[in-house]
Structures are given as structure tokens and as C-alpha cells.
């Protein structure tokens, strides 16, 4: 009886406090809460230190290196002086300029394809009455494979001697193109492998968004006599915006750092056709041992992708508010 009596009271108490918070009043913190907060920080400090050690420190270290004369030596890194020369070297290098153009183009094309195809598949899956679970499971196989493994598998498919792609082109009377041997076809082949692998990720996110859409809007659209096509463009897509934005952001972040696909499939070739910024940074750092310019490549790449995401969010957000004003 005692417990039964306390539970509702507690519930009421929490409801009032949340009401307080909503009522524009700053949340009051008593001494107990403050000491608990301190205790909380204390308990999470070891974890935070570990996170700092494995993420924040390397990032800061990389930025420091990018602004210094770095020499890797047996005795450790020798870092001295502040310099911008790493950045001027990077910006002037035609291989960096190409890698930037390639990475941006690759990101735009793969993300666009994946969003379009992923959304289409999600729409089909949502309508699917039977076997939806099975279809999802099958779809997730490419996504769950480690990229190095799926890239190796695609390498077998594209192999010019015994690859299945070669046989298919032969059967279609298109001769025997060396898929990974010419710049255009190598880039297309990489895009295909990427789209195959990551479209399911977009599908899952969009499907989750679709399932959560309110039914009544669709009923209203039906009552108004909107066609399926019109419903999709004016109801489904605007409501899906936040979901799609999330998927795009995740994908941009990942696609901009593409490394494993070219590393396994082409080593950045033919010539430097598939050298992404990540491949270039790796090569400059770990093959040429030029850690200063390498860190500059890494830092610029990170800054660029963050800027790209912010820009995307800004454009997308303004569109969202526009539609918000309309409704």
C-alpha cells in the first residue's frame, strides 16, 4: 500500500517539474542535484579521458602537425615551428586538386543515387504485405559486409580474366572491356560497388521515417482526390524531409572519406583516376612519410566535409521552413 501511494505522487511531481521547465523558467538546481552532477562527471571522467585519448588528441595532434615542420624519426616525431607551407604545398599540388574534384564528384553521384534508389526501395517495402522481414534481411546483407570484403568480391566480379562482369559483357557482344583498367570505367565500377553496398542503409532509414508518418494526412489527401503521384510529391516527400536529410548527412560524411574501395579495387589508379582525398592522405603520410603535408590533407578534408554538411543543412533547413510557412 505504501508503494502504491508513493508512485502516483512521484509521477505528479515529475509532471509539475517538466511543466516548470516548459514555462520559460530556468531549471533550479539545488545543492543535491549539483553534487550529483559532480559525482556523475567524476564517474564518467575515466571514459571521457579514454575518448579524449583516442579521438580528440589525435585530431588536435593532426591539426598541430599540419601547421608545423614535421619529420618522422626513429626517436619519434620531430615537430618544430609554425608554418603554412604544408597547406600551400597541398593546395598547389595538381594531384590534390584532382583528388578533391574526384572525391566531391564521387560523393555527389553516389549519395544522389543511393538516396533515390534507397527511397524507391523503401516505398516498395512499405507497401509490401508479405515477406517484408525477409526482404529487409536480404537487403541488409550488402550493408553488413565489411567494405574490404565486399570490395574484394567486386574485384573478382570485375576481374578481366575470369570475372563474371567480363563474361556478361562478352555474352552481350560488347567485347572484353578491362573494367578497372580505364579511368571512366574504373570510376563507374567503384560507384556501382558503393551504391550496391550502401543503398540498404538509406532504405532502412527512409523506411523507418515512412512507417512513422501520420495516417490521417494520407486520408485527407485521399478525400481531396489527390492522385498517388501527387500525394507522393506533396505529402510523403515533404514529411520525409528530416529523415532524408539525416540519411544524406550520414552518407556525405562516409562517402567523402572513401578509402577502402579504391584501396582494394584500384590502388587509386588507373594513373590517379580513383585517388580520393583519403587515399592521397594515406599515401603522403605512410608511403612518402611526409607527415606535415599528409596532416594538412587530412585536416582540409575534415574541414571541407564539415562545411559541406553545414551548407547542406542550411539549404535544406531553409527549404523546410519555407514549406512550414506554406502549411
Amino acid at each position, binding site marked *: 500500500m505504501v508503494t502504491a501511494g508513493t508512485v502516483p505522487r512521484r509521477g505528479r511531481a515529475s509532471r509539475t517539474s517538466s511543466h516548470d521547465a516548459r514555462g520559460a523558467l530556468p531549471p533550479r538546481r539545488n545543492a543535491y542535484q549539483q553534487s550529483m552532477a559532480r559525482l556523475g*562527471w567524476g564517474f564518467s571522467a575515466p571514459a*571521457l579521458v579514454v575518448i*579524449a585519448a583516442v579521438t*580528440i*588528441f589525435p585530431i*588536435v*595532434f593532426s591539426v*598541430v602537425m599540419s601547421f608545423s615542420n614535421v*619529420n*618522422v*624519426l*626513429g*626517436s*619519434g*616525431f*620531430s*615537430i*618544430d615551428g609554425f608554418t603554412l607551407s604544408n597547406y600551400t*604545398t*597541398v593546395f598547389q*599540388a595538381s*594531384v*590534390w586538386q584532382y583528388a578533391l574534384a574526384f572525391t566531391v564528384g564521387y560523393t555527389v553521384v553516389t549519395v544522389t543515387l543511393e538516396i533515390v534508389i534507397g527511397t524507391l526501395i523503401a516505398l516498395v517495402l512499405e507497401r509490401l504485405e508479405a515477406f517484408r522481414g525477409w526482404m529487409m534481411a536480404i537487403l541488409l546483407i550488402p550493408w553488413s559486409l565489411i567494405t574490404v570484403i565486399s570490395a574484394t568480391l567486386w574485384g573478382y566480379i570485375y576481374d*578481366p*580474366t575470369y570475372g563474371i562482369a567480363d563474361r556478361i559483357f562478352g555474352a552481350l557482344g560488347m567485347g*572484353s572491356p*578491362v573494367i*578497372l*583498367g*580505364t*579511368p571512366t570505367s574504373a570510376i563507374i565500377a567503384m560507384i556501382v560497388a558503393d551504391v550496391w553496398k550502401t543503398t540498404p542503409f538509406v532504405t532502412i532509414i527512409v523506411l523507418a521515417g515512412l512507417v512513422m508518418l501520420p495516417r490521417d494526412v494520407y486520408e485527407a489527401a485521399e478525400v481531396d482526390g489527390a492522385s498517388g503521384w501527387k500525394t507522393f510529391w506533396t505529402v510523403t516527400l515533404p514529411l520525409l524531409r528530416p529523415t532524408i536529410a539525416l540519411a544524406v548527412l550520414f552518407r556525405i560524411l562516409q562517402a567523402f572519406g572513401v578509402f577502402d574501395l579504391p584501396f582494394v579495387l*584500384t*590502388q*587509386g*589508379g*588507373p*594513373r*590517379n*583516376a580513383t585517388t580520393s582525398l583519403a587515399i*592521397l592522405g*594515406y*599515401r*603522403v603520410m*605512410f*608511403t*612518402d*612519410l*611526409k607527415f606535415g*603535408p599528409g596532416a594538412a*590533407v587530412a585536416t582540409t578534408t575534415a574541414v571541407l566535409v564539415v562545411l559541406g554538411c553545414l551548407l547542406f543543412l542550411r539549404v535544406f533547413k531553409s527549404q523546410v521552413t519555407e514549406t512550414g510557412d506554406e502549411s
Partner: protein
Amino acid sequence: MKASRRPLLTAGLALAAATALALTGCSGGSSSAQNGSSKPSGNATKGSISFWAGPSMVGGQDMNKILITEFQKENPGITVKYIPAPQDTDTNRATLTTQISGGGGPDVYLGDVVWPAQFASHQLALPISQYLPKSYWDTFANGLVAGATYNGKVYAAPFFEDQGFLYYRTDILKEDNLTVPTTWEQLVSDAKIAQSKKQVQYGYVFQGANYEGATCDFMEFLTDAGGKVLSSDGKKSALDSPAAVKALTFEQSLVKQGIAPAAVSTYQETQSMNAFQDGDSLFLRNWDYAYASANGQGSKVAGKVGVAPLPTFQGESGSGYSNIGGWDLYVNPHSKNVAADLTFVKFMTGDTAQKIIATQFSEIPTNQAVRTSADVKASNAVLAIVPQTQLVARPSNSPQYPEVSQAIYQAVNGVLAGSQSPSDAIKSASSQINTAVSNGGL
């Protein structure tokens, strides 16, 4: 939230600054005397050391394990811990450099023959000539120690040598009454005959992918044509020459005429080996392991494969040039027991070990006495023709060699893939090399 984030950020910055300070400076090794006058640290007969090497398997047995067992029989006081290294050379190097510059890493490591200059200039390898006398270095075959020397100090002991060879189908040459080609022109005409009779699909397979191997193959064509990569002082590119254009044009013509498959622009050793072993090609350029492999289990051409020095261009004297490959033994500057490391290095380059690698694993020994001994020659067909070959080294005496090589293999790969003309490719490679050796660019 805001208030609590700031101390964390400050802490992070402080941590970074502290580490940057700690890592700064403290470079510079003691300048020591040359030619074996210094005394290594540690005990030459006691202790435990680690050895880093890529597994080298023949018939299910790892060469490194067998050698370590032999070593411990002779040196019971020293325990050797074997650390298998990544098979991919660049991954191997990246792992080693990060480990060693981080203050750790294996005591002795097997490294590529083109690493000494880069590793020396970054202090990732110990100049072992300060501990080992001239009499030791004299046990090696000519020219090998020079390849491991940088600024007058030797940084590695040559463990096994490798070089390019021409492999050919004995059955087809005999059927067509052809002799083993000594010129590239003859190779092309032989190939055309066999191809027109449908005995093989292709005439010649080699390495043209976007990697180090394409540099090795090109070095052979280039030297045959009379060209070179760097000026004699190593400070400028000497690549922009008619000889280089001739060499690259010839490589391109192999693909254009259908002598080599178009896919050669994606071929590393494995792919070219597969094509030859499947009976698809009359000739193959490969390293010394290819003889055992082509005549071994799983090869469709086993028993029908011969080996010869590579051809040269018409009008040149002697055989063609073979690019030097192979692996050297390096000592980590952080090693605590350099004396034991050197005992191990001496064993690995001595009679017992060198005989094992030559007779059981068909490697080319670096030890001159083993190399010329009759029983070793008799057990290794490839070794028997080594004296007839002419060697050329890659320009790896430059600390910027990796970038020089990238310029070369990208040019070769671009031409084979059809995205550049030979003369344009040579011009841009040459300017890339000039930027690289002046330590500029990316």
C-alpha cells in the same frame, strides 16, 4: 552544458600541447665510427629478440620458421620471437614506420631492398656498418651492399636477392622451331607466330598495374633503351629522354598489337602468373619464384616452362637488364640487444641459412660463396642463369624514392590504360620527379 564543456576542451588542448612538446626535439643519433669499430649494446649470445618478416611459404612450410629453428640450434642462448608481417609491402612499411617512430617495433625486420635511403634519412634503421667489419660485407655478391648504403653507411644486410626473368613455353617454341628471344623485337615476332597458330591467346604478360611492380618492369625497358631516371648526382630527373619515350612506346605497343592483354594495366605478379600458368601466354616476365610456381602443382604448364635472361632492344649488346628486387635485414634503432640482433643477422646471411633459402625455397642467396657453390647451382635452375644477366637497380638511393616511383608507375599505368601518350606521360613524370627529389610537392 557550455560551462562544463570548456574545461574538457582546455584539458584536451593542454594534453595535445604537452605531447607535442614531449615529441619535439630529441632527434639525432650519435655519430659513430665506421666499419665495425663500435661495440653493440647487449649480449651476443644471450637474450631474446623479435624478428619481423612476411611469411614465405613453400610446400606448406614457412621459411622464416625453419630458419629460426636452425638458428636456435646453433645459438641456444638466444630466443627469437617470430612476428609475421603484412604481405603487402606498403602496409608492411606503414606498420613498421609507425611502430618504430612510436618507440617500439621488432628488433630485426625484413624490409624491401628499396627502403634503405628512406629509412636511413628518417632514422628508422640502425647503420649496422658501425658494428660489422669490412670482411663481413665482403661475403656478399657484388653490388648488393651498395644498394643498402646511404651516405657512406650500410643500413641493412642483403638477405635474398631477386630479379626479373623471362619465362617461356618450351613446348611451343620447339613446335614452331623458334629460339628463346634475345631481343624484344624477336619476342614480338615469336609471339605473333604462336598467336596466329592459336597456340596461345597472348604473347607476353608482365606487370602494369598502378603499383611498384610497374616501375620495376619499366626500369628494364628503360635501361635496355639506354635511358635512366635520375641524373648521376641524384638531384634531377634524367627521365625526359628519347630512350624513355622509346621504352614506354614499346610497352604500349605490346598492348596495342595484342601481344599483351589490355588487362595488363591491372596486372600485378599474381595476375600475370595466373595467365601464364593457365597456358594463356607464351612469355612471362616475373621474379625468381615463378619458376617453381609455373612448374609446380596447380600449373597447367608444369614441365613445359623454361627460364632465360630478359631480352634487350635490337642493336644493344649482351642480355637485357633485370631489375633488382629482394629483401634485406634491418636492425631497429630502439633494439635493446643489438649484439644478439647482429648474431641473428650474421646467421641469416651465413652459409647454413643461405643454403636453405636457395635449395628449399628457390630464393637467390646474397652470400657469394653459397651462390657460386656447385650443389646450390644444381638445385636451382634460375640461379644457374643469374651470372648471364645484367642488373639495374631502381633509383632508390634517394630518400624520396617512393614518390619517384609513383611518378614512374603512374606514367606507365596511364599509358597502358590508354589515357596518355608515352611522350606526354614521360614529360609529366619527369617534372613530378624533379619536384619530388627537391623534396617539394605532395
